[in-house]
């Protein structure tokens, strides 16, 4: 799974810029293989057995105990699936790209390689390496193919993430050094009982370091700006997958290795998360740029993810991972619909748009579905995720839980406001001549919706998977 984007990337390097169709086809095929493999792992993973499966392990640098150690378990399987789906649909979404096609797909595939790597690595060093691999292409993708204030956004995003990395490295090294094992293998490190002091310090370093990428309040401001500037597929990947890297890393590294540190800081986490949830919806309410609106809704939803993690209960983490998945698919859908509209109209101002249901019924149906999913309508995957998180939260942090639930009303208002101004009312005469989504371009969006609905109707497929990992995970803590 890690290999297929890489292979695609290498083939692409050999192709000429002019062979656009071939370039697209190659990237699609390599993305398709990733998708197929991720679906395969998701389905073939034996839930009753649990634990790590599909393990691959090679020593790389013996002296420092670095090894290539990847595997799949219930926690990352959903996220792998998510990445597979988003990259596949992302490539399809950018089918029409004409500017520097080759470089674009090369970077995208590089990004995805990094993402897969992070999700699967069980070696802390490789984890961090892949993490950086995933982050760097972002800068270039936004800078070259972006829009609105792209230099500023790209710079800001990179600086933020680098600052985050600046916190992560000391955190990782602290754990590495104080374990005395001389290994980066997370499973071995997990077995070590670090002193509480080390745990507290390392946890806070790692939490804020990775939290930058997960857009934890108040480290979130890069995210809306970045979303706005990025081209469609990059926004999809970015909001859909990259932000999950952050939250996943908090779970996988910070909480996994420093359980005591986690318990010490859980209150703070919950507080920040709740602030993020409430804050995101309110700020989103005042935005007029479609992508900003989505950006802030992401802040809010990632707050829910964080809140779930903060509870440290099976339900909470189940919900949280589920929410990562659901939110990833949902935002991908959001951005791909917005991208479609933006490509045609070249505006994202919600007041300037209007009546799009009339002009492009299919495109707007996609957006509306995403908006409803964002508002937490049942029958969609995110409903279950939010439900689990909220129930868990109310038990552990009642005040924060109730606040977060109350924010849902505003969330609904916020989603519907956008839908109403953009898609209902009389159409803007400027835009009436635009065509609707063609069946081919509609396909990726359909896939996303199908995923959302499938897991909305059969949540157990997902929750069972996650649970198989969460229960031992928490017992280990």
């Amino acid at each position, binding site marked *: 799974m890690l290999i297929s984007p890489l292979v695609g990337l290498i083939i692409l390097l050999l192709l000429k810029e002019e062979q656009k169709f071939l370039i697209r086809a190659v990237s699609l095929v390599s993305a398709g293989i990733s998708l197929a493999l991720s679906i395969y792992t998701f389905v073939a993973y034996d839930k009753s057995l649990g634990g790590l499966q599909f393990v691959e392990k090679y020593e790389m640098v013996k002296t420092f105990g670095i090894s290539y150690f990847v595997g799949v378990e219930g926690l990352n399987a959903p996220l792998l699936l998510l990445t597979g789906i988003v990259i596949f649909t992302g490539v399809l979404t950018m089918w029409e790209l004409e500017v520097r096609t080759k470089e674009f797909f090369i970077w995208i595939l590089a990004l995805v390689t990094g993402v897969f790597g992070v999700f699967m690595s069980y070696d802390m060093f490789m984890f961090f390496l892949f993490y950086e691999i995933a982050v760097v292409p972002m800068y270039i993708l936004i800078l070259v193919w972006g829009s609105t204030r792209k230099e500023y956004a790209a710079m800001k995003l990179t600086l933020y993430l680098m600052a985050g990395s600046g916190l992560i490295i000391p955190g990782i090294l602290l754990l590495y050094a104080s374990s005395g094992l001389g290994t980066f293998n997370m499973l071995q490190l997990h077995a070590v009982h670090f002193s509480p002091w080390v745990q507290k310090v390392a946890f806070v370093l790692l939490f804020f370091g990775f939290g930058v990428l997960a857009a934890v309040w108040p480290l979130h401001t890069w995210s809306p700006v970045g979303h706005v500037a990025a081209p469609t597929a990059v926004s999809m990947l970015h909001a859909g997958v990259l932000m999950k890297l952050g939250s996943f890393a908090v779970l996988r590294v910070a909480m996994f290795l420093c359980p005591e540190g986690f318990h010490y800081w859980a209150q703070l986490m919950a507080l920040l998360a709740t602030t993020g949830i409430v804050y995101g919806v309110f700020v989103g309410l005042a935005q007029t740029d479609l992508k900003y609106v989505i950006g802030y809704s992401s802040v809010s939803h990632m707050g829910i993810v964080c809140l779930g993690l903060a509870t440290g209960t099976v339900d909470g983490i189940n919900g949280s991972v589920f929410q990562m998945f659901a939110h990833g698919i949902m935002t991908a859908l959001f951005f791909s619909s917005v991208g479609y509209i933006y490509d045609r109209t070249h505006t994202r101002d919600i007041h300037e748009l209007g*009546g799009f249901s009339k002009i492009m019924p299919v495109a707007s149906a996609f957006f509306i579905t995403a908006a409803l999913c964002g508002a937490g309508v049942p029958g969609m995957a995110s409903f279950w995720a939010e439900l689990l998180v909220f129930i*868990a939260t109310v038990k552990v942090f009642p005040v924060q839980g109730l606040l977060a639930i109350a924010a849902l009303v505003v969330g609904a208002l916020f989603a519907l406001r956008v839908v109403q101004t953009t898609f209902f009312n009389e159409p803007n005469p400027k835009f009436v001549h635009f065509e609707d989504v063609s069946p081919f371009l509609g396909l990726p969006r359909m896939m996303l919706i199908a995923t959302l609905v499938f897991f909305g109707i059969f949540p157990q497929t997902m929750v069972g998977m996650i649970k198989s990992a*969460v229960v031992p995970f928490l017992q280990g803590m």
Partner: protein
Amino acid sequence: MGACDPNFLSCLLIVALPLLSFAVIMIFTWRRHKLSLAISLTCSTIPLILAWSLFFRLKDAVTMAKPIVTQVNWLVSDAVIVPFGFLLDPVSLLMLAIVATISWLIQIYSIGYMEGDPGFARFFADLSLFGMSMLSLVSASGMLQLFISWELVGLASYLLIGFWYEKFSASEAGKKAFVVTRFGDIGFFMGLVFLTFFLKDLNIFGLGIFDINNAALTHKLTEAQVTLCALLIFCGVSGKSAQFPIHVWLPDAMEGPTPVSALLHSATMVAAGIYLITRLFPLFAASVTAMSVVLVISTITLLLSSTIGMVAKDIKQVWAYSTVSQLGFMAMGLSAAALGGSTLFAGYYHLTTHAAFKALLFLCAGVFIHHFGTNDFFVMSKDGGRKLAIPMITVTIGALALSGIFPFSGFFSKEAILAQLWHLPNKMWVGLALFGAFLTAYYTFRVIFVLLFPRKDDDPVWQEYYVREPGGHGHGAHDDDAPGGHDEHHGVPWVMSFPLIVLAGFTLVLGFLQTPLEKFLLGESHPHDMNYMLLFSAVGCALGGIGVAWLDWGSPKAKWQGFIKKFPALENFFIQKWYMDHFWRWFLNTFIYGTFSRIFTYNDRRVVDGGVDAVAFSTIGSGRLLSFIQTAFVQLNMLFMVLVLAGVGLYLLMGR
């Protein structure tokens, strides 16, 4: 109880088929109207048959105390276990049958009503979605499933109200409905969460409705806890069932197509709230405080909406306010029953009868609207509304039922509620209810009389009332079949008049089924001690209302001025809908948009983001400062490199 249970399967079919039809239409066939219609109809007819067959098959097998529950696990997380299943007891069986019937009738009706609309297929898809969620709501076994269906109902109503999305008012109304009911739903959800809290050893989401009721009955909870939960759940109820002060969405929701108004806002959706109270009746009944609050709120609702109904000019608005008032009436009945230690029968009975006659009224209104292309019943009257024979007769039947005139069904159910109120120690309530009945009869017959006895064309009153808004009569597609396009002999297609007749039949029959229904619901029938005084006063009030309406609007000498004209301040107050809309708008603008949103945005821009940018800029600035020769970047960098290299080297050397 496994998944192969025949009851489970048929329930599953009832719920799943409409959902399937929704999905299929939305994804595949939304461009092909006829096919979509066929799918949708099939998928509503089968549930109809199944629902009635279930009803008749299990009629004698189940009682309130011994329901049939079938469920499977839907979601198993750690502490959260969500079952999916069905609860069949008299209340839900009857409701299932009613909902299935009315949905089916309205689908039939819509064939005629929505003909030629570009969104024809979408409309049927949405109707299917609504049918699915409503059916699942009434048959849900667990609270969470109920909540989910509850939300889905909200979603479907949002889609349906905003069906003509090009109209700003329609999409605005849809949004309003969704957000306002959502507001209530959050209360509902919190109520559930609190219940989980209080019933520590129980998992509410895995819990059937009956367990909650048992818990309430066996007094595991303290009085205060029950009150809190009940009131929070009542939030949800008042959102859905449009109780004061969050009733404001319902009148606006009339922006939707009329079949929708009939389906959602009369018979089924708004009834969901009342249905929830009947479901959780023991819980509510366990808290006197909560029930008193419900009683007060429902009374306010009743009076408020009746008074507004008196001055509305839009026929659908009138029916909408009458719906609100009748819902208030049902809630009054239920709360009075709870306070008086009686049974839930009266309120529930009114719910059933109301479903029939209000759907009837709306559908008739729909026929008029469809025919004349306006919502204003004064305009209809002038354009010859009374010449449409079938709708005119049926609307009169509905109106008589609504006013509570013997022998129509409304009479029986209203009387039952009044009897409950009569048992309350404070007689004020029954007085207010009677006053409400009076007002109801008045505004209902105001419409009927205006329609039946129009003035001559040259009568001066038309100057005031005959206001055709330019272009105001078309919902897009209807422009081409507006008046004139029809000649009156085949004015009403059979698909539209057929449901009218069926519903009129129900309205007539249901009244006489009171005793068997009560027996079915409660297992026994209480002998009715006819309180003749009450009976006569109720009928008297209704007749009084009709009489006043006759004087004001009906008789040839009537001035066509409501008696309320004599109190201009009051009238204005009513026309402005008690200023409730203004209040909410103000609230939203000031607090949500104005305060929080702005403060947070400002904070985000300036403080959080600005702070970070400041750090960035100061970094760059300090970099600039350090580069004393700004332009020589390459060499400067190298110099630093060299210096640092040498410095580090020296340091290491010294250290050795």
